[in-house]
């Protein structure tokens, strides 16, 4: 594909169809292409100096991006875009909602393929990730409504509060001191504002809840649970978490807690099956040192059913 710079949509689809047939080994339903775009090049032809994105004067000649001229803007995402992409005449650049190129000074808007940290490519990946997440969540919501019958129960809820923060010296955030205001519907938070989420579970059962924060630049981070901890909310429990708005760190959830620091729990001991090599498979219980030669453990660790179902203490 890369070797054919003036590859057309028809050729591309034909190549895909051939591949599908050769892989399946029999007749399969194959894709077809027709319409006015069928014979236009996918990558915009073989203009000298540009392999994938061809330019004629100030106009972009790249398949669906045909006729994009200098300062034409393209929406990154269709739903209320916070960023737009503009054609600068030699590169694609990312601008804010207002569509102004280099509003903060020459070269301030990030360019595609410029520099090691390709901001635009990262943002586009984040937007794609966000759209995928939104679609997945929308599907999840539909799937849970099977049958339309459920026992009456109170539902867990989340409330948000916003506290205005101030930018201190060197763009660092000062401790916010303002009033906490209920954030409902569409609230706008700016840099350094503190967003607080309170979760309540009034139901009799535990629930698993995850609260995601989607940044203006489409990066996604987690408000609840905090890193490495369970997202389970016990019955009657209330949890509060605060996060600085636009603080761009993405946290991952680990099921089963986190690995303890070496030496963090010096009283924790492991009960191992005697005579076996020291491996995770030999371990069956844990305990705590309470004196030099005494360990506190659970009775169920040393008192269990034998092959006949009779409960016995383990032999030392």
């Amino acid at each position, binding site marked *: 594909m890369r070797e054919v710079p003036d590859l057309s949509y028809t050729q591309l689809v034909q190549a895909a169809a051939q591949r599908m047939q050769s892989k399946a080994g029999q007749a399969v339903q194959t894709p077809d292409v027709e319409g006015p775009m069928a014979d236009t090049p996918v990558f915009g032809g073989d203009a000298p100096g540009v392999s994938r994105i061809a330019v004629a004067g100030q106009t972009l000649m790249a398949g669906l991006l045909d006729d994009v001229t200098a300062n034409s803007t393209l929406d990154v995402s269709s739903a209320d875009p916070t960023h737009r992409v503009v054609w600068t005449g030699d590169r694609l650049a990312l601008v804010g909602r207002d569509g102004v190129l280099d509003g903060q000074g020459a070269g301030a808007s990030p360019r595609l393929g410029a520099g090691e940290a390709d901001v635009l490519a990262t943002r586009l990946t984040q937007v794609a990730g966000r759209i995928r997440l939104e679609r997945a969540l929308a599907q999840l919501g539909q799937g849970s409504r*099977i049958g339309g019958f459920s026992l009456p129960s109170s539902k867990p809820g989340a409330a948000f509060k916003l506290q205005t923060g101030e930018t201190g010296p060197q763009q660092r955030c000062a401790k916010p001191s303002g009033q906490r205001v209920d954030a409902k519907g569409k609230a706008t938070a700016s840099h350094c504002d503190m967003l607080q989420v309170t979760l309540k579970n009034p139901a009799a*059962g535990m629930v698993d809840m995850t609260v995601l924060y989607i940044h203006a630049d489409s990066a996604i981070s987690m408000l609840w649970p905090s890193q490495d901890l*369970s997202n389970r909310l016990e019955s009657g429990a209330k949890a509060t978490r605060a996060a600085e708005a636009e603080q761009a760190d993405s946290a991952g959830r680990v099921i089963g807690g986190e690995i*303890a620091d070496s030496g963090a729990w010096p009283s924790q001991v492991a009960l191992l099956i005697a005579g076996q090599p020291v491996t995770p498979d030999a371990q069956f219980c844990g305990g705590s040192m309470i004196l030099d030669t005494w*360990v506190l453990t659970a009775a169920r660790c*040393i008192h269990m059913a034998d092959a006949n179902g009779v409960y016995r203490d383990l032999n030392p």
Partner: protein
Amino acid sequence: MLVGTNLLAEGQGDAISVEKIIRHPAYVGEDFDNDIALIKLSRAPTVPFKTIQVPDAEFGDQLDTPGVRTVVTGWGLIEGAQRTAEMRQAEIQMLSRENCNEVMLDSCAKAASEGIAYAASAFGLKQPEAEAVWQELISHVRTPLIFERPCMYRWKPCLQIAS
């Protein structure tokens, strides 16, 4: 008994044999009550370790309050069935037994109601019909669910239907 290591591997920590085991006399196999025992080691560990202070009754009651956050540590199974060589820690919240029973029963009821909902959608039942099936089902439950007290004992099946 392996003392003084986070990692379960040969050459880590100090492996000490057990001299004596003392179980709480009131502990019976399937119950969660009195689930405590003491183990005497044949000698003191030769690697660095620390002892915990066992809380007295008053402090124990404070710790045993529902909602108190505590950290559990150890090497149990993670993510279903995987064994771990590295010691892990996780924060949990204390739960009263009453609350635990309610939660277990609620989750049982939830599983049952989801099953009914699935059956209702599969057979195209309407809301009143689905509720009639639900009433029929719970009228066949052998004992009132509340007396099952799932958090008193080890795992028991959710619903026992009398045939």
